């Protein structure tokens, strides 16, 4: 376990006693204010309606749904493989982690065991997405607090990762990289070298940014002791991922229920001590380092062999087979038109996505189309607690906190 290094407690800037006496007789009414839905700091279209006492939030309620597009209803009308591009649009900062989450759940329902090489590639690319997601989260969060230069340090590295992903998957943002039973394509020649080079750059950028902010008085004052959520409340609200670990609870599915050989890698879980905005940001910094560690080990251990399972019910035949062989053509046709079939039954399967537990609950009626898909987005349960977190703090703290719990509207509202 790796704890966020503590900083000596700051002295109070404004003590209670400093408030002049005449203010205490001044009776003021609560003022109502809409924060969002359309505001650059609201990270998408999220609306918080607050009752203000001065600049302090006395009560808050949230409204979501501006980006609801019926992901679950849409999936019921698509084959399993056709659902994958829709999962890209859940947490669009780390699209491949969603692809992996959905493919893993569907594969478990169908009883498909993917190849070892596929597992390692999913780990490598998935961890790259986690790094990118955290870079975006920290970068935009710091912009909200007023530290713009950090944004360029981090976003330039994100662009470099996207250039690799573009070569690998054909898309920068919505990659649709997984398929049921494997991946869209194998790694390209030189992928390992490209990745290792970018990782070194990211490490440097993360160290640079940390040295700019970690002990910066303005940053520390803006984030420490702000919008604390206790571990008990966090668990009750269903917090997972970095937001839960910031409160000091070491829950990480990669450790507690290791999948894809995560138990073979040497890495630490990052935990915070207070559960404030500072911890939520710093936990993500540590997770970037740990993900880089995992990727380096995985590249060293990467086995050879096929990327897709050798199963005609799941994997498309090779192009040569499809064009020159009638059985191959029929096989291809059936898989495209009827889809990969899952037996009657149901499954709930979860992976550790960038924001926490990303679960898919799939019910099958035996056809190639899922009968029901329910996505468990980590954001949804985090944003449920938002009003409780910001009450008693100031408007500026609301903005800083919204960034630190990393709410992604695409995933929140599906």
């Amino acid at each position, binding site marked *: 376990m790796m704890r966020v290094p503590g900083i000596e407690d700051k002295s109070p800037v404004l003590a209670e006693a400093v408030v002049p006496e005449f203010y205490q007789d001044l009776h003021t009414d609560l003022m109502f204010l809409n924060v969002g839905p359309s505001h650059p700091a609201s990270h998408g279209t999220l609306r918080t309606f607050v009752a203000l006492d001065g600049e302090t939030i006395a009560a808050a309620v949230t409204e979501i749904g501006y980006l609801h597009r019926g992901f679950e209803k849409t999936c019921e009308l698509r084959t399993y493989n056709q659902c994958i591009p829709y999962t890209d649009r859940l947490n669009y900062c780390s699209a491949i982690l969603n692809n992996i989450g959905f493919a893993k759940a569907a594969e478990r329902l169908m009883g498909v065991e993917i190849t070892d090489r596929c597992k390692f590639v999913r780990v490598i690319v998935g961890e790259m997405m986690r790094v990118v997601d955290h870079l975006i989260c920290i970068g935009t969060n710091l912009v909200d607090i007023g530290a713009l230069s950090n944004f360029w340090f981090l976003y330039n590295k994100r662009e470099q990762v996207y250039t690799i992903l573009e070569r690998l998957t054909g898309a920068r943002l919505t990659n649709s990289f997984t398929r049921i039973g494997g991946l869209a394509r194998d790694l390209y020649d030189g992928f390992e070298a490209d990745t290792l080079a970018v990782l070194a750059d990211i490490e440097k950028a993360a160290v640079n940014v940390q040295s700019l902010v970690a002990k910066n008085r303005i940053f520390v004052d803006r984030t420490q002791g702000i919008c604390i959520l206790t571990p008990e409340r966090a668990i009750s609200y269903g917090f997972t991922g970095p937001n839960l670990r910031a409160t000091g609870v070491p829950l990480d599915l990669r450790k507690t229920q290791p999948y894809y050989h995560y138990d073979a890698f040497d890495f630490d879980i990052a935990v915070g001590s207070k559960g404030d905005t500072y911890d939520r940001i710093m936990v993500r910094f540590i997770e970037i380092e740990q993900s880089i560690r995992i990727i380096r080990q995985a590249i060293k251990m990467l086995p050879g062999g096929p990327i897709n399972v050798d199963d005609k019910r799941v994997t498309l035949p090779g192009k040569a087979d499809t064009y020159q062989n009638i059985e191959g053509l029929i096989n291809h046709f059936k898989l495209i038109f009827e889809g990969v079939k899952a037996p009657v*039954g149901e499954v709930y399967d979860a992976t550790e996505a960038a924001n926490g537990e990303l679960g898919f609950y799939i019910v099958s009626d035996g056809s190639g189309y899922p009968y029901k898909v329910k996505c468990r987005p980590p954001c949804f349960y985090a944003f449920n607690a938002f009003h409780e977190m910001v009450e008693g703090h100031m408007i500026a703290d609301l903005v800083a906190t919204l960034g630190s719990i990393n709410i992604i509207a695409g995933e929140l509202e599906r």
Partner: protein
Amino acid sequence: MGVSANAVLANVQRLYPNFFTLSPTQEAVLVVPLANLLETLTKLRQDPDLNFNFLMDLTIIDYLTHPVPRKTRFEVVYQLFALESAARLRVKAAVQQAESIQSVTGLWAAADWAEREAWEMYGLKFDGHTNLRRLLTHKDFVGYPLRKDYPAKKRQPLNDSDTLLEEMEQRLVFKGLKTVEVEG
């Protein structure tokens, strides 16, 4: 990490031998009658030997067009997780359209939005939920979009935005910032 997941699930099986099953995907499932649902969930949450402190997800299934015939149309599903043992358990109960489900907001805060979403999508009421309003869909939306008989292509143009004043009032009263005037 004192107790193992298997020990906890064995405990659950011992407590509810008639309701416990293991799915083909090796997941522990508890199918209970609706009347026993709240009592069972309370036990699972509060018993220190079980301690399912996470409600990971909550949803409803509409079996209207499912090829395997069933007596009841709906089923409510809870995905539970216990932090200490890392045990996972799925709890399900069959529900008729006219029946309502007892809210578990008193056991897990996560149930607040989860039940609102389940209600707006499937139209099954949760008794005891204090703020059962539409969450992802518009406040004037008519119908329950995830029901199998709701057409996917149906459109409802809606423009009026929600003032949120009603919800704010409820929150202010809850926070003690506003007193409710009682008549008489």
